[in-house]
């Protein structure tokens, strides 16, 4: 009898684990001296450990930008690698302060999961990669195919929708991590690997023979990927949101990590002066120091620098800017003005 009651008590205690108080994350982050950032378990270009063993990538740079804004030091980040399945629970439970892990912004996630999306750092869409030897040219020819996916993603739902609306059948083999799904694809368990297109390019370079697979032209969904924070903490949400916006605004104004010091000394442009914290509201509204945006640009770079260096032409992925070009250059990346 007593043992049973105790067992029940333990069960309840476990179920109440995520019940830490929801409070000022910004204060907590400042107090502990670093940002705990959730990233992927290894997706080249977005968040993966580089040859020096440091985390690098477009998503990682968002974390670093936040650290630069808060502490003036982009290296004050600790990374938590998470699978797609684990990511939201880790954020909800307070294990991480922010999630920057190629996460798609959807209605369900924004409303039912207690999360807030801070912005979009990469506009993506779901695509298919097939073995070249199959000779498939279009996704419409995939009726009856076996398809490898990573569990816990919007990909699973889009896939089901796409095949249903086209009256086709498929067999979904769902793995825990993207690495395993690549292994399954390589081992020939499935004909097709599906994921966001950017990921497909990233995963393709993980294949032993990248030339043996082709990415099909169809994009079957909208996948706006961005950093996520917990609901109910406006201050922190704004810090993360504007850290990203600062990077995009810097690109728009042509401020880079190379010329930012000079610009700061010489610029007469009121827009740049506001961006660099020389005039206007500065860091006050965000409860940060006045040089928060300068630190981001100096230490992490503007959006274009981060993009080209991690996933663009300066990287093995060689992804074109496409949708992710600035609004003024034919893309849809657009950040509200800093003023």
């Amino acid at each position: 009898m007593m043992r049973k009651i105790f067992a029940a008590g333990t069960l309840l205690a476990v179920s109440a684990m995520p019940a830490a108080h929801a409070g000022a994350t910004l204060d907590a982050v400042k107090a502990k001296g670093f940002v705990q950032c959730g990233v992927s378990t290894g997706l080249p270009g977005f968040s993966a450990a580089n040859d020096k063993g440091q985390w690098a990538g477009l998503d990682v740079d968002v974390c670093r930008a936040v650290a630069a804004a808060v502490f003036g030091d982009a290296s004050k980040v600790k990374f938590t690698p998470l699978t797609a399945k684990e990511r939201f629970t880790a954020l909800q439970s307070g294990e991480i302060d922010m999630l920057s892990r190629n996460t798609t912004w959807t209605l369900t996630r924004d409303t039912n999961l207690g999360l807030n999306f801070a912005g979009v750092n990469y506009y993506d869409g779901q695509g298919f990669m097939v073995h070249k030897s199959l000779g498939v040219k279009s996704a419409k020819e995939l009726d009856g195919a076996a398809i490898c996916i990573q569990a816990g993603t919007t990909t699973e739902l889009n896939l089901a929708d796409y095949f249903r609306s086209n009256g086709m059948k498929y067999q979904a083999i769902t793995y825990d991590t993207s690495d395993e799904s690549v292994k399954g694809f390589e081992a020939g368990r499935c004909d097709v690997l599906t994921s966001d297109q950017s990921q497909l390019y990233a995963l393709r370079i993980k294949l032993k023979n990248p030339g043996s697979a082709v990415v099909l032209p169809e994009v079957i969904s909208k996948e706006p990927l961005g950093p996520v924070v917990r609901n109910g903490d406006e201050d922190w949400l704004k810090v993360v949101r504007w850290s990203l916006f600062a990077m995009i605004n810097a690109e728009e104004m042509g401020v880079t990590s190379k010329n930012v010091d000079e610009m700061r000394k010489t610029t007469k442009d009121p827009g740049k002066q506001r961006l660099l914290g020389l005039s206007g509201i500065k860091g006050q509204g965000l409860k940060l120091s006045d040089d928060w945006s300068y630190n981001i640009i100096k230490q992490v770079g503007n959006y274009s620098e981060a993009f080209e260096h991690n996933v663009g032409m300066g990287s093995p992925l060689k992804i074109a800017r496409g949708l992710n070009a600035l609004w003024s250059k034919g893309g849809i990346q657009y950040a509200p003005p800093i003023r």
Partner: protein
Amino acid sequence: MTDHTDEQAPAAASFWRDPRKRAIVFQVIVLAIVLGLGAYIFHNTLHNLEKRGISTGFAFLHNEAGFGILFSLIPYDETYTFGRTFLVGLLNTLLVSAIGIVLATILGFIVGVARLSHNWIISRLANLYIEIFRNVPLLLQILFWYFAMLPLLPHPRQSLAFEGGIFLNRRGLYLPAPVAEPGFGWVLVTLGLVIAAVVVLRRWAHRRQEATWQIFPVFWTSLALLIGLPLLSYGLLGAPLDWDYPALKGFNFQGGMTVIPELVALAIALAIYTAAYIAEIVRSGIQSVSHGQTEAAYALGLKRGTTLRLVIIPQAMRVIIPQLTSQYLNLTKNSSLAPAIGYPDLVAVFAGTTLNQTGQAVEIIAMTMGVYLTLSLTISAFMNWYNKRMALVER
């Protein structure tokens, strides 16, 4: 009667001096504290979830799931509900556990007996098997059976074809599926009757042997009956069974039945790993039976096999069963490693995809934990019952 009242008299002196009443008071206090704590935690969880805007409750079970599952024992597609995904995952967990338990038991008993063989090579081999598979982490073994074995099989278009429309490739083993036609029910009825007859036959043979010392060949007779009669009725009814053969269409085989490689890899890995433990349990059980029993059996003229089957094993079972139970529990719980190779078990489907799509971690993890708890307690209860039956009956 008067004695009784005398005895109770001193107890009435003080409430606190009566150990029984005192014990009850303490029990009530502890119970109140535990329940209070539980209620507080429960309330706190709900409050915090609501404050953070995380949905709670079990209403999500009625929402449309919208994702595909590789393999299901019951009808399922994207239009079914999240509640259905729970059932699909649960059945898949039960399936792989059941297959694993049966295979592990058979293999474990064979290896355990082989370990005690007088043949040096056989006993060394059994020992080698035990040492290897007990000492390599299970997850690695699962990944080995899956990712290392998969590339050895051919692509769908170069499938290995066997007699009777059976095909083997990287996507699985394709078998013809039986389709029952009218009249097939009678074959099943015959089979049921034959099984009942075999049970009766065994009892009769046993009684006859005790009475007359004559041995009736029960095993071979039963086998002949079990195979012969249903086949005969099947033939007489004009073979009322049709087969749905798998055929290569587009990417893969369509139709028939498919045994997916994930199921095979997981069941094999679980069986081989657990069998190594069961083998040791069987060996220790057999060794726990005193050697005098064997000698006595030989002295009575029993053959080696008969001695093992009728004298040693029944006594060893009393040592084996309790430990076997915990291995069965381990195997069932270990089946939750399935997501690593994409087998759609309860953890992969329900505590994985469903959790992620709905975000209701507390409810889903609680349900999943409840399932494993229930499974474990059920297996445990069954094995306890079996143990009681097998226990030494004093005569």
